[in-house]
């Protein structure tokens, strides 16, 4: 993989294509996870994310796995796209997402609402916190992996997550239906 990445970083089109083919499934999953069911533009955003991965090839220093690197890029692109769409639509994204979320196989009945709350929170948090929340909660990274993927010390990653959780706490406390749901669930 290292040789392939080195060749891709020099701009060799065949190598770039092979790298993209390898990371594309994960990139698409990240994009769809972040955008949620309301993300009708997931294909466009996935393509944007893949192009961003190509742009970032030369900057890859091997400090983390390339797949993590690509997923992180995809997460950033998807969060930015989400925010842009929310700003454009000027609607409460929580309602938009909740209306479209459906429980999947084996899902807790409250799972769609929980996912919608997390996604809507991404539109409000500062970028670094939103990225941390995506990696940690949506993609299931450990704190060490989050720190590695975002190239920050572990304590910085923890601090970002703590702030994101405080925002989540405020959101829950400010919404009786959510608070009630959490108690029931």
């Amino acid at each position: 993989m290292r040789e392939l990445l080195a060749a891709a970083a020099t701009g060799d089109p065949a190598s770039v294509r092979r790298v993209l083919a390898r990371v594309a499934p994960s990139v698409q999953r990240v994009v769809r996870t972040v955008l949620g069911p309301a993300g009708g533009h997931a294909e466009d955003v996935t393509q944007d994310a893949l192009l961003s991965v190509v742009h970032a090839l030369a900057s890859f220093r091997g400090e983390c796995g390339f797949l993590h690197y690509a997923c992180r890029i995809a997460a950033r692109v998807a969060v930015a796209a989400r925010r842009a769409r929310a700003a454009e639509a000027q609607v409460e994204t929580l309602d938009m997402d909740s209306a479209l979320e459906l429980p999947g196989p084996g899902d807790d009945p409250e799972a769609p609402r929980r996912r919608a709350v997390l996604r809507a929170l991404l539109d409000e948090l500062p970028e670094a916190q939103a990225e941390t929340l995506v990696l940690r909660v949506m993609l299931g990274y450990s704190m060490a992996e989050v720190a590695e993927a975002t190239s920050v010390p572990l304590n910085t990653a923890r601090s970002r997550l703590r702030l994101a959780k405080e925002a989540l706490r405020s959101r829950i406390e400010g919404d009786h239906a959510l608070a009630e749901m959490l108690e029931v669930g």
Partner: protein
Amino acid sequence: MNKLASIHPDHLLDLARRGTLPPGERQRLGAHLAVCQPCAWEQAATDDFERERGAMEIDPAQLDRLVGGALSRWGRERPQTPGSCGALSRAGLAPSPTLVTVARPGLRPRVQASGPRWGLAAAAVLAAAIGAAMTLPARSPLEGARIDPPVASTEAGLDAGALSAGVGGDS
């Protein structure tokens, strides 16, 4: 907010996710989750998202199309150096002939004036200055001048003026 809820034991949540949480710590994590809504939410939501990702269907044909689209865009935006152009052509990704130039805001194109032009311009300015000096003392400053009625100034007008002054001043 009590102290138990204010310190989030992320490392315990990590261990619980991996299924390696020691029994003693399980009790500690349970006590925290009972009083900390965000952590309880995080734990439940992480499972929710994992299930959702697992159930996502990936269409290989669609992925191929997306990869191809990204590569085409990359090919179009690459600089047209002889080496890269050839490589892209071989891969069927030759950039379009459109030359895209990116303008950096705040920077104006540098105009390189040739020597004779500068000389002519300087001579014209000098001649105009001498002419004005010879005629001004004999006339009133307002004599023969046309005074336009006042025009209500607007922000747009001011901006337009500033813009044109800036452009003109640079030429």
